C-alpha cells in the first residue's frame, strides 16, 4: 500500500489532486481511497488531503500518519505545518518551488529524496487560476508521477482531460510540462 499526503491551501486544488491521482491508479487496476483532512475547509486556509493506492483491497479507514509521499503545493506552509511529520524513511517529498532540490533538502532537514517543480509558474503560463492564486494541482501531479512512478503519465493525463472541471486542454498541458520539468534525484 502506498500512502500519499498533500499539503495545500484552500483553493489550490489539493483535494481534487488527491482524487485525480486515485482515479488514475484505479484505472490501472488498483483499489484506491481519496479523502480530505476532516476539517472545516476555507479558501486560503491550510488543507491536507490523502490518497491510498494498493493492488489489494484498501480497508484501512484511519487517517494517514506515516506517508510514503508528501506533496507541498504552497511553500509558505513550511512555516506553519510540519510537512515531513511521520514521513517514512526513503519517502519522497515533492514541492512547488523553482529552487533546487538540494537546497530544499537542507531547509527541510531530511535525508529523503526531494523533488522540485515550479508548478505556480506553469499554472500561470497555462492561465490556470490567477497570477496571485494559481491553481497548481494538475501541474504538481505531473511532477508527482515523474518522481514516484505511481501511475503512468498517460493514465494521469486521461483523468485530467476527462475530469478537469474547466480548461481541460490547458490543465493537461500543465501536467505534461511539470512532468518534463521536475528536478530531483534522477531527473536533473
Amino acid at each position, binding site marked *: 500500500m502506498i500512502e500519499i499526503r498533500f499539503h495545500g491551501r484552500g483553493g489550490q486544488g489539493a483535494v481534487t489532486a488527491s*482524487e485525480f491521482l*486515485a482515479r488514475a491508479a*484505479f484505472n490501472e487496476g488498483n483499489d484506491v*481511497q481519496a479523502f480530505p483532512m476532516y476539517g472545516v475547509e476555507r479558501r486560503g486556509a491550510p488543507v491536507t488531503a490523502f490518497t491510498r493506492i494498493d493492488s489489494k483491497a484498501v*480497508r*484501512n*479507514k*484511519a*487517517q494517514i*500518519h506515516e506517508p510514503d509521499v508528501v506533496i507541498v503545493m504552497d511553500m509558505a506552509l513550511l512555516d506553519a505545518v510540519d510537512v515531513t511529520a511521520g514521513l517514512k524513511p526513503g519517502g519522497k517529498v515533492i514541492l512547488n518551488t523553482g529552487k533546487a532540490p538540494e537546497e530544499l533538502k537542507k531547509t527541510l532537514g531530511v535525508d529523503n529524496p526531494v523533488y522540485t517543480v515550479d508548478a505556480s509558474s506553469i499554472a500561470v503560463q497555462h492561465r490556470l487560476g490567477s497570477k496571485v492564486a494559481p491553481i497548481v494541482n494538475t501541474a504538481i501531479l505531473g511532477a508527482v508521477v515523474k518522481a514516484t512512478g505511481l501511475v503512468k503519465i498517460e493514465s494521469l493525463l486521461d483523468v485530467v482531460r476527462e475530469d478537469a472541471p474547466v480548461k481541460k486542454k490547458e490543465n493537461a498541458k500543465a501536467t505534461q510540462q511539470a512532468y518534463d520539468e521536475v528536478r530531483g534525484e534522477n531527473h536533473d
Partner: protein
Amino acid sequence: MSEMKIVSGNFAAAYGAKLSRVEVVAAYPITPQTEVVEKIAQLVSEGEMDAEYVMVESEHSAMAACIAASNTGARAYTASSAHGLALMHELLIWASGARLPVVMTNINRAMGPPWSVWADHHDTLAQKGTGQMQFFCENNQEVLDSVIMAYKIGEDAEIMLPSMVVEDAFILSHTKEPVEIYDQELVDEFLPSYDPEYKLDVERPFGFGSLGMPDWYMDFRYKIAEAFEKAPDKIEKVNKEFSEIFGNDNGGLIEEYKTDGVDVLIVTMGSISSTSKDVIDELRAEGHNIGLARLRTFRPFPVEKFRKITKGVNVVGVMDRSYTFGHGGDAAREIKDALYGHRDLILKDYIVGLGGRDMTPKILKNIMLDAISLQDKGLDNEIEWVDLRINQERWRR
C-alpha cells in the same frame, strides 16, 4: 450497464436514492450531510432523477413532508445528521407508528457541546427507541446498497417500517472510493414500485393519524412489535437476494469475518470495522484465534444471531463509538442483554473514537490484544475508555 465510479459516501447515498426511484425528497442541509441533498437536487434539476424535491425550513419539517408523501403511497427519502436528526426525533416516532417505510440516510456525527462535526454514533443510537430500523454501513458501496435494501425490507407488507441507513461522518461521507452504480433495470427488478395496501386516496378514503383510545392504542403498538420480530428474517432474506443479483453481500444482521471456532470475538460497527479486518488478519497470522462480528443491524437488534455466533467463545470485546451516560456503550449493553442466561463468557466494553478521534490500526490492535489477554487474567474493567488524553500512551504504544 453497471458502472464503477469513485464517489464519496454522500454521493453513494444520493445514487442509492436515485436507483431506488424515490418520488419525494425533502431535506434540510447540515454538515456533513449537505452533499447528499446537493447531489440529489442536481440530479433532479438536470432531469436525471424524476422526483419531487421539497425545500423545507427544518429537519422536523423534512420528515413531516416525507411522512405526508409516504402516506399518499409515494416512495420518500431524506437525509440528516446529528443535531438535525435530534430535531427530527418526534417525527421519527410518528413515521414508524404510522407504518410508513420512509428511508433516511444519517451521517453519524457527534452531538455538541462542544461543537463537533466528526464521526460518532450517539446521534443515531439516541434514536434507537423510535421504531426505526437502523443499518450501520462499513463502506460507500454498502451505503448505496443499503438504501435500496431498506426500501425492499421496509415496504414488505409484513414489515411496513421506516429505516435509517447510517454512515460515519467524513470517514465515509467525504472519502472517495470505488462504488458500483448498478444498472437501473436490474434495480427495478429487485425493487418494484411502492404500492401500499392503505394510502391517502380520494377514491378509497381512510382516516390516518386519528385518536387511539386506551382500548386500542396498546394493540397498535403490539402490531409494530410483531413487525420488528419478523424483520430479522426479512433482512437476512433480502440481503441474500440482493447479493445473488448484484454480487455484493453486506452481511444482513451481522457480518461474520473469520468467526468460525474463535476464542475471542471482536464486535464493531461502521467504518472502524473495515480497518479492524486488516488487524484481525495480522493477529491471526501471529497465531491468535480471533474473529470479528460487524454489527450491521442495530434495530431490530440481532439477539438470536448473537447467541449463535458466541457459542464456544471465551471473550467478547465490543467497541462502542457511543456512550449513553449513566449506562455505558450501547452495543455492549445490548449484547449482554441478548446473552443473559445463554452464554457464560467475559464481555468487555471499549469506548472508542468519540467525536471523530482517529482509530488507527495500532490502537485497534492494542484493544484486541487487551481482549485476548482477558482469557488468562479475567475481566479487569467492564468498561474502558480508549485513547483518552490521560491514557494515550498505553493505547498508542
